[in-house]
């Protein structure tokens, strides 16, 4: 088992909060076998802890290239949450362990019908929100990352398809961290244009996706 008992227990505690079933698509790859195996092992823990409420469809990246292209998957392992139109709305290029456990389960809960704290605010401003892809670059040891994962995910779920969030663990995908020259986490990249460095709250993120000025903060 590659996941510690502490995280295993955390998954078991959090996953019990899920009450409705959800389907996830998982892409694995032989070129990152260790992380792919870890992702499948971790997802098995989630599936057991939810008594099967979490269901997964597993695809090998190398033998499902058309499907990977459709979902714009360029790296694996990855977990996809797709909407009713079969469009990916939240992608985890990260094993949902450690600081990602709680926001991962929270996202699944809201996706399957639990109330979304930001829904009213996002829907009110939906006309002003530009379609955006938010890349959230994180690590497991970042104290602020759990909160920002939740905020981005819940904004995305309330945005009626206008937002898409990619949660990327740059320890698993160091080449993505290097691409954006990340030396601080969390780092947010919005539409490959705006880069927001450091802890950001929901109000500030809303401001950014309403297409306001570029800003670097910490």
């Amino acid at each position: 088992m590659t996941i510690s008992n502490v995280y295993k227990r955390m998954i078991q505690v959090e996953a019990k909060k899920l009450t409705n079933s959800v389907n996830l698509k998982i892409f694995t790859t032989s070129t990152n076998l260790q992380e792919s195996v870890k992702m499948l092992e971790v997802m098995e823990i989630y599936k057991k802890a939810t008594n099967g409420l979490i269901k997964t469809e597993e695809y090998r990246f190398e033998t499902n290239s058309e499907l990977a292209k459709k979902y714009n998957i360029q790296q694996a392992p990855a977990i996809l949450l797709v909407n009713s139109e079969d469009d990916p709305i939240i992608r985890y290029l990260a094993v949902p362990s450690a600081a990602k456990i709680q926001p991962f389960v929270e996202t699944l809960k809201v996706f399957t019908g639990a109330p979304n704290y930001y829904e009213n605010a996002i829907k009110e401003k939906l006309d002003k929100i530009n379609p955006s892809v938010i890349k959230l670059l994180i690590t497991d040891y970042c104290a602020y990352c759990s909160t920002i994962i939740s905020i981005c995910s819940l904004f995305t779920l309330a945005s009626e398809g206008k937002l898409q969030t990619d949660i990327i663990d740059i320890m698993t995908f160091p080449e993505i961290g290097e691409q954006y020259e990340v030396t601080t986490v969390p780092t947010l990249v919005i539409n490959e244009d705006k880069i927001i460095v450091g802890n950001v709250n929901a109000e500030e993120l809303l401001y950014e996706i309403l297409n306001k000025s570029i800003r670097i903060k910490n």
Partner: protein
Amino acid sequence: MFNIDMEGINAEKTYDLIVLGGGPTAIGCAIYAARFAMDVLIIGKVFGGLIATTHVVENYPGITSTSGQGLMEMFKDHLNSLSIPYISDEIRSIERIDDHFVLHSFFQKFKAKSVVIATGSERKKLGIPGEEEFSGRGVSYCATCDGPFYKDKRVCVIGGSDSAAKEALFLSQNVKKVFIVYRGEEIRAEPINKKRVEDNEKIEIIYKTNITEIKGDNNVKSVIFDNGKEFEIDGVFIEVGSNPNSGLAKRIGVKTNEKDEIIINRKSETNVAGIFAAGDVADAPFKQAITGVAEGVIAAYSAFDYVKEINIEY
């Protein structure tokens, strides 16, 4: 129940107590409030507060050694066991209406009979040229978050406190060399950490020195000392103390001292009836997680007394 989960949160009801803050003080306060059978809600900007960024906690009774995040996971479990709701949000204003307070965030409003402000503190900035420009590109305020990006590099820690010493010790696990740059003649770390720093071959202390500028191109390349010397470095970790997050308190008429700390008495009462304060945001001279928890507990008890009284009156 954590972060922005709506479970257990009811914007329509009037809570007995809303605790503002996400660190040990707020959590200690809420645990006691729940045990006093109060309807309690915690609203914090970031769960864990500043201590969550500490790589090692060795002075919390009953826990020999854990990380800041590890301690927070234990606190989270404790809150879960008592079904205490927590929400990540920031209260912008508080108004008193009749016998209760209305707390407004950008996204929601909440009602409470009493409020404990445990909003802690945030790290000070140096305020020198290059600091803002290279923030996130070599300038950092969190060694545990960003230290691993500096494997085999040369970094400096600015400051001479116990926190600065601990940051340097953490960084030394990965980097090639750590320089503690301190304006004083002797670092003020706890003796145990001071000795660890002195015994660590990767750490060097540069005394009686200030940094006047941070320079680089795309990333930090060097710092300028106040003697004019340019010193090559790959990362600058700033640990020069913190400022209390008392802005909200001041806006609602809560009295603060010259350091912007909220003035409280031994019952954690402020000058505003029904508003209490505790932890790093308050005016205690020695600020630790454990002392914050103790003040939070006192605030919970005082809030319990206060709510009991107004419940009788109304």
